[in-house]
């Protein structure tokens, strides 16, 4: 879903940067308050894994393909959508500058879609579902909806940009990402979260966020 430079006029691309920057700033604030020595390796491992898995487009039929985004996965592990925004911003920076995947001018729009919208929708859907459906299904539902909504927003951005017509754009983006979200996002997120819940439940539960060092940090903040 990486938007190339040519798909959004420069003035609009700047607007998306202006929207994205406060979110990036907040994600750095999250890192400052919440990251500790125990969490840094987990963050780095997830960031590297998401970069690698994004390089692998999964065939979904209809002559199209899709890859995982991963913001919901990171947000669930860290119990905060800001973590998803931070990791996706880092991944998109490297993708944009080193590999030409997603434009530099449109990076704000890509951070907004893949980091902020997919992460926030995914995380809060997961949080709402978790009690009634359990961790695995909630992770699946959150990740799927996060990706789907981010694709719908992308279609609207393409319409505002004058690149896509509105209704055909919504139908095409919606249909493709309904399926990409099911396989590429929902299934992988559910499998990884379930595996972590079984092998390292401490990473998912409050014990990971409510560490003794944190109270000390908060006292200083």
């Amino acid at each position, binding site marked *: 879903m990486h938007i190339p430079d040519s798909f959004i006029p420069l003035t609009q691309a700047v607007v998306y940067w202006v929207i994205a920057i406060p979110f990036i700033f907040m994600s*750095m604030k999250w890192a400052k*308050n919440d990251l500790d020595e125990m969490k840094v390796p987990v963050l780095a*491992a997830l*960031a*590297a894994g998401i970069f690698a898995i994004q390089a692998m487009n999964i065939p979904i039929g209809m002559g199209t393909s899709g890859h995982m985004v991963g913001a919901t996965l990171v947000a669930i592990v860290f119990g905060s959508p800001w973590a998803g925004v931070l990791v996706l911003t880092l991944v998109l920076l490297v993708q944009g500058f080193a590999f030409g995947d997603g434009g530099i001018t449109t990076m704000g729009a890509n951070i907004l879609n893949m980091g902020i919208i997919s992460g926030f929708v995914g995380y809060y859907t997961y949080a709402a579902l978790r009690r009634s459906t359990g961790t695995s299904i909630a992770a699946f539902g959150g990740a799927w909806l996060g990706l789907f909504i981010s694709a719908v927003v992308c279609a609207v951005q393409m319409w505002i940009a004058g690149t896509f017509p509105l209704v055909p754009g919504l139908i095409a*983006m919606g249909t493709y990402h309904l399926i990409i979200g099911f396989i590429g996002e929902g299934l992988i997120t559910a499998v990884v979260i379930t595996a972590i819940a079984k092998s390292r439940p401490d990473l998912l539960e409050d014990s990971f966020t409510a560490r003794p060092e944190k109270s000390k940090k908060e006292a200083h903040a």
Partner: protein
Amino acid sequence: MSGNSNMKFLYAGIAIALLLSILAPFLASPDPDGLESAAGGVIEESKMSELEEMEPAVSSPMPDYAIEGMGKSGEIMAIAIGTIAVLAISFGLGKVFNKKA
């Protein structure tokens, strides 16, 4: 950092990420992604070719996750380099924020 059980998580993460880097060039679908497919379907052909001809704002050293003239091994290397770069940046950034706190 010694005694940090999460370092195991990091090593497992690196191993999985590098394995994906090696597999991706062989397993990844050559079909365009959702956005490109949608573009191909909903944009008029003349406008589409116009969009495709536009150069990116900044040219990147390894466009499309490939190193020129190196084939599949170049693709593996490009993705592995990216993986290690993301790892190093996030680890370094995490350390910087952790020190400041």
